[in-house]
């Protein structure tokens, strides 16, 4: 808008100079770290870098090895289970809470504070608390047993078959408050007249939600889904705190695979290949969303 103010100047580069100087950190971050760093990792994922990154190209070797590794397959499976269930449950619970909160209740602030406070806590804190609650000797299992059901077994963190559900419980506890907040904002954005009209027509409340309100909230839902999903792909701290990937490799996730190969196993090539796969996953989710969101419009 102010570019024209200096339109007479000959040198384009120095036009609006202060603004450009102010934007240097942003430009550097965007180009060097986000663009450059990403390209660098992708390029080096085709090398056989071990302890140090070396440009010795070996084609798709790292990827072949990656998809042959039981630990990686386990990571992907875990992420798929965790991701799918986490998406479904956080949206369902989050929407239920938002709908309850939207009933013009008293103490709305108190309830919102209670539902959202876990989100303020780190995944490490969340993971450690739930590790304690799910502890078989002191936690839920021992309490139910002491109530008389002596054979009751609920021991997710030490049972390889269900350990990922133990992580899921903690993840949902931490994240549903955020979903509730986003969806509540969406609900509040809907015109009160819609509700009045549906009431006049005698449509039951649940039907109004299902067939009128939820379709109207589509953009909010899409944004929420993108936010949850990009968080799911990054799932790391929670697993480290709760199970350290165990028992065995039963709760491994891709982010942890990447970290372990880069900084502990000194097998950089594997780490780069695995992180490139993570990038690909995110791209598959983000590109359609960006297209839907910004595709038709000129400005974001």
């Amino acid at each position, binding site marked *: 808008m102010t*570019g024209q103010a200096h339109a007479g100047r000959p040198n384009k580069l120095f036009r609006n100079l*202060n*603004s*450009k100087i*102010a*934007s240097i950190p*942003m430009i550097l*971050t*965007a180009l*060097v*770290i*986000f663009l*450059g*760093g990403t390209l*660098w990792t992708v390029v080096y994922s085709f090398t056989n870098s071990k302890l140090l990154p070396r440009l010795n190209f070996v084609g798709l070797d790292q990827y072949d090895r990656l998809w042959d590794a039981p630990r990686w397959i386990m990571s992907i499976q875990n992420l798929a289970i965790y991701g799918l269930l986490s998406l479904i449950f956080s949206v369902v619970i989050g929407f239920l*809470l938002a709908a*309850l909160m939207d009933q*013009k209740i008293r103490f709305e602030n108190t309830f*919102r*504070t*209670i*539902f*959202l406070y*876990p989100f*303020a*806590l*780190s*995944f*490490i*804190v969340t993971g*450690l*608390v739930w590790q304690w609650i799910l502890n078989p000797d002191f936690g839920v299992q021992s*309490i139910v047993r002491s109530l008389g059901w002596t054979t009751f077994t609920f021991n997710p963190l030490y049972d390889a078959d269900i350990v990922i559900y133990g992580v899921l419980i903690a993840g949902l*506890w931490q994240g549903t408050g*955020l979903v509730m907040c*986003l969806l*509540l*904002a969406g609900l*509040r*954005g809907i015109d009160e007249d819609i509700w*009045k009209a549906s009431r006049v027509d005698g449509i039951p409340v649940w039907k109004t939600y299902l067939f009128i309100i939820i379709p109207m909230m589509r*953009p909010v839902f899409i*944004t929420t889904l993108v936010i*949850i999903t990009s968080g799911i792909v*990054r799932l790391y701290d929670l697993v480290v*705190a709760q199970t*350290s990937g165990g028992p065995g490799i039963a709760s491994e996730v891709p*982010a942890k695979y*990447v*970290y372990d190969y*880069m900084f502990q196993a000194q097998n950089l090539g594997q*780490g780069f290949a*695995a*992180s490139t796969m*993570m*990038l690909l996953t*995110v791209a598959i989710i*983000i590109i359609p969303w960006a297209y839907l*969101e910004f595709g038709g419009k000129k400005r*974001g």
Partner: protein
Amino acid sequence: MPIPTGPGPIGRLGPGPAGAKPRRTFSGRNIMLYGALIFFALYYLLPLYVMIVTSLKGMPEIRMGNIFSPPMEITFEPWVKAWATACTGLNCDGLSRGFWNSVRITVPSTLISILIASVNGYALANWKFKGADLFFTILIVGAFIPYQVMIYPIVIVLREMGIYGTLTGLIIVHTIFGMPILTLLFRNYFTSLPEELFKAARIDGAGFWQIYLRIMLPMSLPIFVVAMILQITGIWNDFLFGVVFTRPEYYPMTVQLNNIVNSVQGVKEYNVNMAATLLTGAVPLFVYFVSGRLFVRGIAAGAVKG
């Protein structure tokens, strides 16, 4: 972004449609409604309760009782131990070191990232130059890239600069990763300010920095507070960057906490662990409870950071 950043729908409560009709407090609908809400509230509060009661018990009591029973004898010893003498690796000075490291990381990272991002957002909103949108788009898309993809190149850059493993390095990393969301936040806010203000200042001869310092800055206190909440909680809660970019003596509190609790040697002192967990969660919880509605606005605007 469709997420409201201003005083949007979140803060607004429409007038009740049944305002005139008196409602019975104990109608079936209300019992169902509040019953469900209280049920959920208890579920969300349970872990906090368990943390608190566990941290106040002695070890013998923990071994006997269950995790939900209130302490018979309240002791603050676990808190003292968690703070001052719990061991991580070779160090036995408790979480206090991690706490001060976290403070030394969070304060400068928050201030620097907000300073840079606010000037950036201002440039993008009011002094847009050719190509600015492209950089901004890369920045926003970059926010979705998994950190793991960019970690190693950053390690190399920091090592070349000679600050890998130091607090300075970690502060730079937090500043970089705070950039997308904060810039977006400030850009949206400055765009929403009346353009006449900017034009009037221009006519009066004010330049880039003058307008920023004397007009934009004083008008944007609320958004600065939101950005601060976002950054303080985000940086304090970080684990991955802390583990990757610092040496053990500079580990932030979250990393140290994880090392204390998940250390394999020794007897597990659950009460100390829970006191340590509460201590680590205390700062973000404090920010959360004090800031109230602003926190909600902050995460609504900054949820993309996920």
